[in-house]
């Protein structure tokens, strides 16, 4: 009866990871064909939380679609609203006051820091270290409190409107943002002491999970995945939008093509985002946060418009096809993790399952954003 199953030397078996698995950060399923401990072939199955946002975009008037954007990526929602607003404003020719644009950038960058902090904590937890999660969530709490006071929401913001933002920032916000900078920089030093130099961590990171620049190009990868493969690409600087050309920041690039490079890129991005916030606070102009004549009905002229921005997870794009009416004819949302995750199937071949999971962590996945 209970005979153990014996596999032939070349025989493979299928291992099912997910849909509910702590390391997949949501409902993501990977069918892995294994040869012993090694992955021969992987097939990612997505779509478990598909909500058809693109169809909703086609049936709702422009302003009603605003809140959908923050339901894509619940960790870095502000960046997605920003891209959508920029695209519609470009199409409809709405002028945005300078102060509003600065406030948008401030919020997007703060949101980026909070998003990266969740990634850091969750990623280290994937690798088996529980402590950093508690520290990063503590720091993130400061950002969320700050943003909640102004925007009225902790994660799913509807703060960016066509023409500006819904509410001006006040002195208390500016003060708390300024106080946050030295605190966060100290925290970053702590994280580096706690994590980056750790020998167990390094052994799982350095030289593991190879993603080549050519693979990035064929799959359209962006964010830390591309910049960790030595590709000097950041939409904020390569294709400037909003007020980014007026702000000082650097784009961290590492050419190791491994987990460690992607990790270091994201860690330095936190620093650079802090720098942008500080600089934007210094330069913050006075004035209104909404144009005097903000249009109530949005009717862009017929045409096909595209806008890309750099969100916390990479290049997010909105394609808007307008037929001149109050509802879009077509609203395509190009999500960055979609392309980054697609690459996983090819990149994880030949890895051990533990290393594949570590690599998946460095892709910075948010599943609702893949499924849309």
């Amino acid at each position, binding site marked *: 009866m209970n005979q153990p199953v014996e596999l032939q030397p070349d025989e493979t078996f299928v291992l099912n990871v997910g849909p509910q698995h702590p390391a997949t950060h949501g409902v993501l399923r990977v069918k892995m064909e294994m040869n012993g401990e090694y992955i021969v072939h992987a097939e990612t199955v*997505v*779509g478990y939380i*598909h909500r*058809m946002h*693109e*169809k909703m975009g*086609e049936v709702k008037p422009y302003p009603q679609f605003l809140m959908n954007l923050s339901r894509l990526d619940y960790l870095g929602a502000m960046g997605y609203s920003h891209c959508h607003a920029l*695209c519609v404003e*470009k199409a409809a020719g709405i002028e945005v006051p300078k102060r509003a644009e600065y406030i948008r950038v401030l919020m997007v960058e703060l949101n980026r820091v909070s998003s990266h902090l969740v990634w850091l904590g969750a990623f280290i937890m994937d690798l088996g270290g529980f402590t950093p999660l508690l520290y990063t969530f503590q720091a993130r709490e400061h950002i969320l409190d700050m943003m909640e006071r102004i925007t009225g929401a902790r994660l799913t913001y509807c703060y960016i409107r066509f023409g500006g933002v819904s509410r001006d920032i006040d002195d208390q916000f500016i003060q708390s943002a300024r106080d946050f900078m030295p605190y966060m920089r100290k925290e970053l030093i702590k994280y580096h002491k706690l994590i980056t130099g750790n020998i167990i961590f390094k052994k799982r990171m350095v030289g593991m999970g190879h993603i080549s620049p050519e693979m*990035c*190009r*064929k*799959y*359209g*990868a962006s964010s830390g995945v*591309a910049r960790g493969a030595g*590709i*000097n*690409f950041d939409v904020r600087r*390569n*294709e400037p939008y909003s007020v980014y050309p007026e702000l000082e920041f650097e784009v961290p690039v590492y050419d190791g093509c491994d987990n460690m490079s992607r990790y270091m890129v994201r860690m330095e991005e936190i620093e650079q985002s802090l720098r942008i916030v500080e600089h934007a606070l210094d330069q913050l102009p006075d004035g209104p946060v909404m144009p005097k004549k903000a249009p109530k009905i949005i009717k862009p*002229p*017929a*045409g*096909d*418009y*595209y*806008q*890309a921005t750099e969100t916390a997870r990479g*290049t997010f*794009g909105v*394609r808007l*096809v307008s037929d*001149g009416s109050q509802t879009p*004819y*077509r609203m*395509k949302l*190009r999500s960055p993790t*979609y*392309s980054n995750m*697609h*690459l996983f199937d*090819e990149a994880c071949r030949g890895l051990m399952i533990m290393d594949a999971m570590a690599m998946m962590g460095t892709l910075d996945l948010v599943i609702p954003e893949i*499924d*849309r």
Partner: protein
Amino acid sequence: MIREKLKQALEHLFPAGEAVPPAIVAEGEEPAEKTPREAVIETDYATCGYHLDIKTPPEQLIEVVSLIDQNDFFIESITGVDWIEEGEIEVVYDFSRYDFDLCRVVVRTRTDRDNAALPTITGVYAGANWHERETAEFFGINFIGHPHLVNLLLPEDSDIHPLRKDFKP
């Protein structure tokens, strides 16, 4: 400049490509008759967000995409637009570049609505796989030669095409 280089190479592909009006039609105006099947149009980046708008017949799609691939573009997305009144589905391919020579390229091709079929470009860009699967399930397009054309985001046993304009839930 990569933009001129690519434009010249593409115009070489379409020998009969004559000058055509811009893709964005001015307000209140009807587009002139039927849009041409093949054209390379330089668009105003500030108004529409891309530099080159390429219209190609499906037969030349792979040739055009290979040319774009040779010029080091990365694939950004693939999507469709259902032009129900014209009885056609337009499939839109977005490409961009990693370096500072910014050039966003949009490739458009059209296929019949009732019997929608296009060649796959997964042979050129492996990353087109998921994008084509998504477009296939949302619009009901058969990408001929695709290695694994099953539903991606929709349930695996469904055969609805929700982004077609005549879709009734």
